[in-house]
């Protein structure tokens, strides 16, 4: 710690602190413009200049200068004020000062500083900027005439996002922020630049002319898309969510968001939202009242009783999931499941068998300080972008060694010095087995306290790096290096995401990853962690609350089979579009067709809902109170910001009513439900709502210690023998099927596509935008082609979010699908 004096106040701060940070601590106000807490010191704007007694004769930038013992700082003097004012005068000479029509007006740093320093006139004169505005993309508008060149956009895009969209170009006064070749912005549209811009130079286009900042009501909640669990502060006006505000004070995300979180909110306001309950009469769905709809539901479910199946997505709050489980109980049914029932088994069965856990062992922010990171699948960035940004920071700021086990290239594989083990599809387990084998062979494995070492050794006989190298197409050296780096690192992380498009070998992959985490000592070690992350915002909550089949119950897939065979009397689908997103669409449709009574509760009239007997209009995350548990076990509060459209109700209310109809007791409020569910869930015991502060509450503490340390042998796969193999997965711009109702993500990726590598595209004579057909097992899907250089030869990719593509007609949970390509 270092002691210093600022304006006569004594402060003690960490020796890595800057003068500015020390001043904040001391409650001394120093103006800043280019400073941002999460970015590296920059020192461009010069408004934070202060005097330091030990450095007489010049002015010292407070935001970049580290504190030293005994420093005596003066934050304001006549000279300082004069220089700051001159700097502001300089800025205002060329700035367009179009505050009346600037969306930043009212929360603009330049405006505030001008006001603070009373720059009422300007001694200088000069030309105003007259640069064209970049309005090429639908999400981010760049008006460089308002730019103060603080560089925050370029810095955040580089340091945090790792995309590198922006750079300074030209010199001197002509310097400006530009994209490559000064073209329109075309990036991943996470909008971090929007959030960092201190003036109105970079603005969210969907928010233009919607509201003045002071007219907005701000409500902190949790993003309703992925398992990252980012804080989103909803900016609402007249009961409508108009924008997502920047907030780096709460939550796990440090103010960072992805395109979905920042621009994907508009599904809340969608015209297509269900506003009234629907009931099937004479073959078609017609609007009805809640009373009638609920009565029909209660009747139907009562009749089916224990032969009812309940399936949910993982987007409901913990409280709602708790109620849903109670509904199952009330019906005497153990047939309850979520998210297709298969994809999460790496966690529930894989990690359970090895570590005795069903959750990630550490928290996201720790990864920034990791020395080595292994990402299983390059898609991790696509499924969990903001956690991906933490990985980027670890790599860029702390030189973490990143290895990606990947069937295709992606954002991660492009990070500085990232090593990519680019393998043939479906062979992740083989590679992890080989890495385990290297650790054991080379004596790098930390085998004390582990059970099953000998069995694993024996089972790994077939996974010598040389053999696996041959099967997978990855070099022996790369496998060895990856294993050694992971073992040598003091702090290391293994990342694995799961979700509906990643169903294949889910359990095996979870076990393999857990084996690796045990052999390297990563599981349970402070600073290290095994992260198995769910695709949806409350995937972890669903597992924590055991929204899974009971001992005699059926899982989602078995329910569908049972329904198809006429053995299930009713199916209650809550917040899930099974037809669009579950593997094997034909089978799902058959099951839903066959099941005598189908209730669907959703925001939209999805293809699943269209088959229902009763459709109940539900509420989005922005309309309800409750909690989500993210993929690092962080329980965070979700808060209602706007009322639901029409007669739509929260799942909580609907489920309460259903429970009441059965004569079961339902908690009156979400808070009451939380109290009940924590009492009922071992891991949540003792947690109360008031413990969920600004950063939420991580159950089981930051590091979750494995309960068992069993190594379990698990077999890899054989490569698929087909000239063209289709991979199914997530795209960065979408999450599940919900984002396809949001304007933001749809503005960037509006339709399904089939992605080709350049070599394949050339060989198949396919150009970007061509309509291509893929056939497999007699089924054909058709979409426009997208051509880039991510995919190895013979490998194709299609995102699973778009119902219209019918991808799940050929996707039945395989690791890769053998397809024929035609036009």
């Amino acid at each position, binding site marked *: 710690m270092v002691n210093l004096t600022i304006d006569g106040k004594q402060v003690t701060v960490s020796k890595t602190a800057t003068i500015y940070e020390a001043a904040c601590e001391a409650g001394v106000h120093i103006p800043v413009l280019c400073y941002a807490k999460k970015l590296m010191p920059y020192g*461009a704007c*010069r408004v934070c200049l202060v005097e330091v007694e030990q450095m007489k004769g010049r002015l010292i*930038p407070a935001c970049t200068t*580290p504190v030293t013992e005994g420093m005596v700082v003066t934050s304001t003097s006549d000279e300082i004020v004069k220089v700051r004012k*001159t*700097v502001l005068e300089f800025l205002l000479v060329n700035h367009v000062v179009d505050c009346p029509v600037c969306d930043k007006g009212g929360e603009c740093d330049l405006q505030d500083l001008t006001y603070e320093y009373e720059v009422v006139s300007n001694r200088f004169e000069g030309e105003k900027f007259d640069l064209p505005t970049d309005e090429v993309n639908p999400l981010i508008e760049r008006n460089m005439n308002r730019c103060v060149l603080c560089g925050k956009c370029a810095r955040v895009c580089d340091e945090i996002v790792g995309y590198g969209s922006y750079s300074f170009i030209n010199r*001197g006064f002509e310097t400006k922020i530009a994209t490559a070749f000064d073209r329109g912005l075309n990036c991943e549209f996470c909008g971090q630049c929007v959030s960092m811009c201190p003036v109105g130079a970079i603005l969210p286009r969907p928010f233009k002319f919607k509201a003045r900042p002071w007219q907005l009501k701000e409500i902190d909640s949790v993003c309703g898309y992925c398992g990252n669990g980012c804080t989103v502060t909803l900016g609402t006006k007249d009961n409508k969510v108009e924008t997502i505000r920047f907030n780096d004070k709460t939550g796990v995300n440090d103010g960072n968001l992805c395109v979905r979180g920042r621009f994907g909110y508009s599904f809340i306001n969608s015209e297509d939202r269900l506003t009234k309950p629907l009931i099937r009469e004479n073959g078609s769905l017609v609007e009805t009242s809640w009373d009638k709809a609920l009565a029909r539901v209660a009747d139907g479910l009562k009749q089916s009783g224990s032969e009812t199946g309940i399936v949910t997505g993982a987007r409901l709050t913990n409280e709602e999931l708790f109620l849903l489980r109670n509904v199952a109980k009330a019906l005497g049914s153990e047939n309850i499941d979520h998210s297709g029932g298969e994809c999460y088994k790496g966690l529930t069965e894989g990690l359970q068998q090895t570590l005795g856990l069903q959750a990630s062992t550490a928290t996201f922010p720790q990864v920034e300080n990791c020395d080595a990171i292994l990402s299983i699948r390059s898609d991790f960035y696509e499924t969990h972008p903001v956690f991906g940004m933490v990985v980027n920071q670890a790599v860029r700021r702390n030189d973490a060694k990143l290895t990606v086990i990947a069937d295709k290239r992606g954002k991660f594989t492009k990070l500085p010095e990232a090593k990519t083990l680019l393998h043939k599809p479906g062979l992740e387990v083989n590679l992890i087995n080989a890495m385990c084998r290297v650790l054991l062979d080379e004596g790098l494995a930390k085998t004390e306290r582990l059970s099953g070492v000998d069995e694993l050794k024996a089972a790994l006989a077939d996974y010598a790096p040389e053999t696996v190298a041959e099967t997978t197409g990855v070099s022996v050296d790369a496998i060895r290096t990856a294993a050694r780096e992971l073992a040598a690192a003091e702090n290391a992380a293994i990342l694995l995401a799961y979700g509906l498009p990643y169903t294949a070998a889910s359990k095996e992959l979870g076990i393999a990853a857990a084996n690796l985490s045990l052999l390297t000592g990563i599981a349970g070690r402070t600073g290290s962690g095994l992260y198995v992350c769910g695709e949806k915002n409350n995937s972890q909550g669903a597992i924590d609350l055991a929204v899974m089949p009971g001992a005699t119950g059926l899982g989602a897939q078995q329910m569908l089979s049972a329904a198809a065979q006429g053995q299930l009397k009713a199916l209650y689908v809550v917040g899930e579009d099974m037809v669009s997103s579950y593997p094997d669409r034909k089978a799902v449709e058959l099951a839903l067709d066959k099941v005598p009574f189908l209730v669907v509760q959703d925001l939209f009239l999805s293809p699943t809902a269209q088959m229902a007997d009763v459709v109940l209009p539900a509420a989005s995350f922005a309309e309800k109170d409750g909690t989500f548990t993210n993929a690092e076990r962080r329980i965070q509060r979700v808060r209602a910001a706007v009322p639901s459209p029409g007669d739509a109700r929260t799942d909580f209310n609907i489920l309460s009513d259903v429970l009441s109809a059965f004569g079961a007791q339902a908690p009156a409020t979400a808070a009451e439900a939380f109290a009940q569910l924590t009492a009922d869930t071992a891991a949540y015991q003792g947690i109360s709502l008031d413990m969920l502060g600004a950063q939420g509450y991580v159950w089981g503490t930051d590091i979750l210690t494995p309960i068992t340390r069993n190594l379990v042998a698990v077999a890899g796969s054989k490569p698929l023998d087909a000239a063209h193999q289709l991979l199914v997965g997530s795209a960065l711009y979408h999450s599940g099927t919900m984002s396809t109702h949001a304007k933001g993500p749809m503005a960037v990726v509006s339709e399904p596509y089939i992605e080709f590598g350049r070599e394949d595209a050339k060989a198949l004579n396919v150009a970007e935008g061509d309509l291509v057909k893929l056939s497999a097992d007699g089924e054909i899907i058709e979409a426009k082609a997208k051509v880039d250089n991510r995919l190895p030869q013979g490998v194709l990719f299609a995102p699973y979010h778009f119902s219209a593509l019918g991808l799940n007609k050929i996707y039945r949970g395989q690791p890769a699908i053998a397809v024929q390509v035609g036009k």
Partner: protein
Amino acid sequence: MAESAEKLKILICQGTGGLASGAAQVAEAFETEFEKQGVEASIGKRCAVIGTGCRGLCANDVLVDVCIPGKEAVTYDFVTPELVPQIVQDHILGEGPIEKKKAGPYYEKFLEKQQRIIFSRCGTIDAESLDEFLEHRGFEGIRKAVTMKPSEVIEEVKKSGLRGRGGGGFPTGMKWSFCAATPGESKYLICNADEGDPGAFMDRSILEGDPYGLIEGLMIGAYAIGCKFAYVYVRAEYPLAIKRLQMAIDTCYEKGFLGKNCLGLGFDLDMRIKAGAGAFVCGEETALMASIEGHRGMSRPRPPFPAVRGLWGKPTNINNVETFANVSYIFYNGADWFNAIGTEGTKGTKIFALTGKVKHTGLVEVPAGTTIKEVIYDVCGGIENNRKFKAVQAGGPSGGCLPSNAIETEVDYDSLIKAGAMMGSGGLVVMDETTCMVDIARFFLQFTRVESCGKCIPCRIGLKIMLEILERITEGKGQEGDIELLQDMAYDIKKSSLCGLGQTAPNPVLSTIRYFRDEYETHIKEGECPSHSCKPLLHFRVIEDKCKKCGLCPRVCPVDAIEWEKGKVAYIDLEKCTKCTSCYDACRFMAID
């Protein structure tokens, strides 16, 4: 040694200046002539035509030394290929030097007050020859340095009193000790050869004339600090320097002088050239490092200083070319020898690049303590066309203008700063009475305004506004209060800019206002440019009393605006005049106003 002593040597300046004046053709002419005349056979000696580095008197290129064994070397200047047969015929084969073509007494005078230490190999040895370098004490310095502990090497440099020649004048030994003291396995050594000041070219001459000497200086620095990798950051506008240095580095690698176990002395050093991309600001050390890292050349805040966190976050030491060149000689001759040269505060010699209105433009190396006056008048022959000296800009765009009453200032870091200029890298731009000081300030500001990296606000916007005010003044549109406004903003820009560029860019304005305020006032109040340099303010006329009726002005006028008949005073037709100043510049009698 013996073999070369017997050779007849033709030394031809083949620096960029020499080559531009046709040195390559002259060398070829000598080769051809020797062949044609069978010179080797006639005189019974081997003849060698050697390309050397720059010898300083660039104004008189091509300079050729004819060294006949046993006789004193004879220097010819303004040599053209046409002159070569005569030199061979009359001088080498005939009775002796051609007196008429020899460099005049000014050449001896040019050399007299100089003390050419750093330049001792420039202009005397073949710059590209490792053997010649080795014959001239090459690598003696590093061989001596490795007999000492690294800390003793640093002490020796401290003892010598060497200060950084890049401009700041920070004690070199102390700088080395900072980087040496920072813990860390990998450290970098950088040689800053991004010489960007207008009118400065001393580093280029060293790179072109004595590349091995620079490598040796870097070796000593690397050994002392513990660096295993050295970068030489050379501006891309110096292709010959890059070529010669690369050749020298390659040769050193081939011979095992660089790389693992350098010279067999038990230390490792890799060396690489990084060519700049044309940005002046990359001469600033943090911007230079950003550039090496592949980033846009923009300054970074200090602290952390490079010695703590420099290139790629590792401890880094940066010195200028001339500094490293000095280091070699300190180890040839000892710190005490070096310390005995110069003044109290500035030890050793300093190289200056003289340009502008001085007779003998070129490079001079003088011991610290020599006055500017001596440099301009004694070494470089005074002002061109015998005009009156007005000022000298010392230190490039970061320095200041010194008027005639400050010309006795000694070449010394502290004296120059006291006088309102700075040593800078050593550029001296000499101005005579025809130079407008407002225009000079405008010129330098135009340069810094364009070269600002654009990162910090005062430099990016402030300099542009200053420039616009200066432009306004030189166009006769100056306003009351402009001078005060300029001074005021100059002060704020200096105080608030991020790096050396912005912190010093207003200096030319401040120093010209300090010494030539009246010129500013005349521009503003009377709309006149006293030096007749600011075009919009010009209205030429012939001063009848002064006109000698020589008829030179009508001959130089490109638009036939001057009427003249033999024996009559010239007359300028202002309708036709385009204010090109050709007549004004050409008149030797200051008869055009």
